[in-house]
């Protein structure tokens, strides 16, 4: 087992909240409390399907005041690499999984005068803890949440019932689309905006905020990026003098882990920078958000959780 995991946990609730989203609650098998976390944190869940371990990051969606339970919501991605499918089909009440320590790449900016949240689809998950915290702190907040249809909007009904004045739902099946120009217009000075959802939505919201004079410091975003399948390649480890094959449906990080090589990680989505690894030889296709353009151009480091070789080989300095 990877040293990155800290606890074994057991499923104490598993609900299909929408046809595509399953909501899990976990407790530690040793009965002890989990580590405290701040709103917007994620954890990596490790699930063993018998042959190998899937490790996927998920935002915590439960109350940050309940240390006995962690909650996550998993969207079924049938085109993905199997982790979410396994969570949906095989993880049920009583199942045991591994869970890492929470880490926050998307924290709330507490001094803001107002918090404006823009979510698309499963991008709602980090805002579940935001709203909980903002409600407790009596902060001024507003949520704009776009879903394909009401049925598939995780937590949509519960949010709308609980916060009718702050929650705005946009149901695309009914032809209602969020208009970022309108949402970002006329917001009081000192507002911070947080955007989480599909890549295109995040990019649009960021661009419009910039055009409307929002300073970068008031705009925060989190995108969900999962490793994409790609061409298989061979990786040579210069220091340990061995060769590993990376198959088309596994990430470089996963291939290393499967060969029992430990690389630190947290987000497994190219954002946190933990897994940065030095490259000695080979062309890289960079897909992360962490490295600067100059670092990417230099070609001497890679984020193995998400990026791959461009050609058929890569040599790492590990």
């Amino acid at each position: 087992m990877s040293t990155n995991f800290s606890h074994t946990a057991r499923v104490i609730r598993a609900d299909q909240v929408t046809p595509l989203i399953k909501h899990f609650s976990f407790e530690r098998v040793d009965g002890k409390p989990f580590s405290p976390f701040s709103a917007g944190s994620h954890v990596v869940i490790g699930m063993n399907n018998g042959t190998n371990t899937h490790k996927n990051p998920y935002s915590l969606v439960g109350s940050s005041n309940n240390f006995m339970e962690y909650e996550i919501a998993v969207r079924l991605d049938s085109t993905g690499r199997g982790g979410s499918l396994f969570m949906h089909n095989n993880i049920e009440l009583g199942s045991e999984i591994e869970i890492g320590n929470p880490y926050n790449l998307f924290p709330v900016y507490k001094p803001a005068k107002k918090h404006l949240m823009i979510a698309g689809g499963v991008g709602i998950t980090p805002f579940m803890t935001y709203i909980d915290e903002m409600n407790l702190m009596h902060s001024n907040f507003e949520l704009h949440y776009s879903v394909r249809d009401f049925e598939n909007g995780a937590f949509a009904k519960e949010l709308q019932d609980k916060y009718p004045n702050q929650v705005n739902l946009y149901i695309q099946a009914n032809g209602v689309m969020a208009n970022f120009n309108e949402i970002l217009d006329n917001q009081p000075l000192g507002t911070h905006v947080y955007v989480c959802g599909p890549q295109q939505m995040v990019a649009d919201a960021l661009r419009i905020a910039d055009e409307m004079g929002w300073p970068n410091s008031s705009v925060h975003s989190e995108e969900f990026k999962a490793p994409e399948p790609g061409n298989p390649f061979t990786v040579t480890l210069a220091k340990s003098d061995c060769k590993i094959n990376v198959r088309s449906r596994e990430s470089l990080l996963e291939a290393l882990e499967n060969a029992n090589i430990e690389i630190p990680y947290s987000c497994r989505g190219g954002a946190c920078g933990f897994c940065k690894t030095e490259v000695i030889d080979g062309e890289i296709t960079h897909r992360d958000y962490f490295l600067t353009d100059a670092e990417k151009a230099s070609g001497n480091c890679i984020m193995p959780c998400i990026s791959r070789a461009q050609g058929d080989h890569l040599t790492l300095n590990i």
Partner: protein
Amino acid sequence: MTEEISEIKSKPVYDILQYDPKSRSNLLVSEGNGLVGLVDFLNGSESIPPSTINVMCAISNAEPLNPSSYISPDRCNKMRLFDSVNALLEDLPVTLSNSQMGLRLYICGSEIFLWRVANLARAAGMHKSEYSMQLIGSKARRVYCPHCKTTSEEVTTDIHECVGCGLSLVNCDHFSREMGAYLGFRVDAEAHGEIPERKELYR
């Protein structure tokens, strides 16, 4: 040539006001001769739509410039005059809390004025990229006394007596942006009672 007692990097440097074309509205704030900076700014950036410009001027100096004769009414949406800096500073938080994202604040005046306004802007949730400052007028300093935690206003000499505890303080160039004040320290810390002659440095 006068030599300042200390030279520390935190001493702020001031620019001339620069228009941010991404702004949706522009608030220009000045005190005394700072008006000159606003006029230069407006003359240098004729592309700013007048409807997005609001001006607030304090005209408290002995020989006040009359803003109305420098900024024509059709150059801005609204111009408001205040007969003291304090009156302007009292109004500003209200004006800011009624403002929207996309506002840029342009501040021109004495160093003390710049930081008093900047602190109000920060308290209103503005980031430093949303306001710019130009220094025109008095370089008199606010000096913070670390012994009694009082801030003396309008200090123009290198050494002064703290208004709170009366100790003689030398003010160094260590500047706190939060307080808009320079840090003072006891000039006779090592040999009590030995106070060098003071020099006027910041006019």
